[in-house]
């Protein structure tokens, strides 16, 4: 499944990326959103994009479109 389909508040583990450009992948992994880390969708910002996520020990605002390209599994 992808992070897009996960409900708010449910922790999942990142297993990989699919269909994501190299530049985006580099940026996300550099920020800490990388395979093995636990992610929880927290809330949608007022215009429903980006999405605030708890990624490990930090909060990231991730563009909604990217969520469909992040593969996750149950934590």
């Amino acid at each position: 499944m992808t992070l897009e389909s996960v409900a708010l508040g449910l922790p999942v583990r990142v297993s990989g990326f699919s269909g994501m450009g190299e530049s985006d992948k580099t940026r996300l992994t550099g920020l800490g959103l990388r395979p093995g880390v636990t992610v929880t969708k927290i809330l949608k910002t007022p215009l429903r994009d980006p999405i605030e996520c708890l990624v490990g020990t930090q909060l990231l605002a991730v563009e909604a479109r990217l969520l469909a390209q992040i593969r996750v599994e149950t934590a």
Partner: protein
Amino acid sequence: MSRVVALAGRPNTGKTTLFNALTGLRQRTANFAGCTVEKASGSMTSAGRDFEVVDLPGTFSLLPQTEDEHVAFRFLSECAEAGEDLLVLCVAEASNLENDLVLPAGLKAAGYPVALVVNMIDEARLNGLKLDEIELSGRMGMPLACVSARTGEGLDRIDGLLNRKPLRADLSEAMDFRHVSKKKLHVLQDAAVETARGAASASVIWPHGAVLPTLSRSIRIDRVLMHPVLGPVILAATMFLLFQALFTGARPLMDFLSGALGAAAVALRARLPDGALASLLCDGALPGVSAVVVFVPQIAILFTMIGFLEQSGYLPRAGAMVDRALRPFGLDGRVFIPFLSSFACAIPGIMAARTIPNEKRRIVTILLSPLMTCSARIPVYTLLITAFVPAAFRPWGFDGQGVVMGAMYVLGIFMALLLALALKFTSLHELHPAPATVLPPYRVPSPRELARYVWARCWHFLSRAGQIIFTLSLVLWALAAFPRDAARLAPIEAELAAAKAAGSAEAVTAPIAGRLAAARIEGSILGMTGRRIEPVFRPLGWDWRVSVASLSALAAREVFVGTLGTIYALGGESNASDGLVKALQDAREPDGSRRYGLATAASLLVFFAIALQCMSTIVTVRRETGSWKIAALQFVFLFGLAYALSFAAYRLTLRL
């Protein structure tokens, strides 16, 4: 030769706070060699040894994507190549070690001498974290110190890091980041991630509970500040509060400063003999200084708000909230920081665009940033709004002058969005990249750091504008005072002398003095030049005085106020204590009609909102884009647009 200490780390780890704590007031700002990224460096002494401390731009990983990140790695490589005695002091946030240890681990593996500063140890205690320093130091293979740069805790331990043996670092095997392949960097990054993960996991004891207290608190606050309805309302209210504070809150201090400097000019004139020196000081220098200094309270309020928003952690959240709204205009949330910085000054705003990795989007941001109402426009707006917007104007019970000031900010934003939309149909358009932004935990801003930030920005405003304005005040005084046409002035001077000798009242001598001053200016170089260019700006409702002042604002927008102040002080139509506002309100044509009205003010306000009237900004655009063509096109286009809209504003206001 002193040891070079490079402070490296991810953004929001407290690097700059640590830098300020180590170097105190012994700081200077320049640019990194070969580029326009700002370099903050300072000096410190420890155990009798001198150190040069350099605050590197924040870097998220070993894979640089932005100009700032490239500059940080380039600096390290250049130090290695030059054989500098270098120590990299990596700063990591104690509550986010798994991510923040990647950079120090990678730099060490790349052959650089690294020591670790684990910062915000006070916050880690609040989070219930326990850190095994010996285990962490062993796993990372580097010395470390746990500190709180904000409170000063543990800073004395940094001396031990700085003075460790060997006395001089060996950089002969250090990786040259300028020439390394991306594949090698990826391998380095992956290995560093594993090292960081292992070190953090082995040395940090986590509290019970799923989420750290500081993060829980931030999430709870975000549920309010980023609520679908409350969030935008709070953001809009915050911006509106800023605009009202700029007017209502700063006014008492502004009035005090204006009055004090005006009184000083009058007192000084009474003590000096009549002549060129008295005129130079009282009509040139002091009015010019007053025109800048009097607006420092507003600038201080503006920077206090921006600094508070930044240090509290709200700023990136505000950017995230507006991201989606900006996408239809071909922009994204990353313009929020450059645009918001441009509200203070377009120059750091344009330079902040370097955080945008896409070149086309960066150029678009640079082209649009000067449309944000910068602090240099505030003196001009304040003068015109105070002089021509009636104090009785109170729409919906709000201070009307504050509302108009707010409207000027809205106009700048509206023009920027409109032009952004237009740029979507040019070759500068690029599909929206996929951003992800770090949202730092909410923190209470440190009053000391906030005060330091506000002071630095105020001083930057004063020294940047002050030097230009002061010099131009003297130049303008000279242009307005010379040449003296003795034949034209002699009859009026004789008339004034006779009136004074007869003991006439001020009501008799003042108009004669006014005619004398006007004759002096009209015969001067300034007056002659102003009349030559007046036809160009007459359609906008400007006379030669306003035309000259607007052209002089090319040096710095605030010079407009200083120039008018000088012209009217010399004109004798008002003295320094009356103020320029009254001078503009009372200015009359020979037939007795008001020289300036609301229509002229409207056209001036619109012109200043749009035209690129700042040589420093033009030069910065050139430096950041690498192209005089872009800077020239931007200037010409915005001047033409400003002229057209200013004309329209004048004509429309005349009809009201």
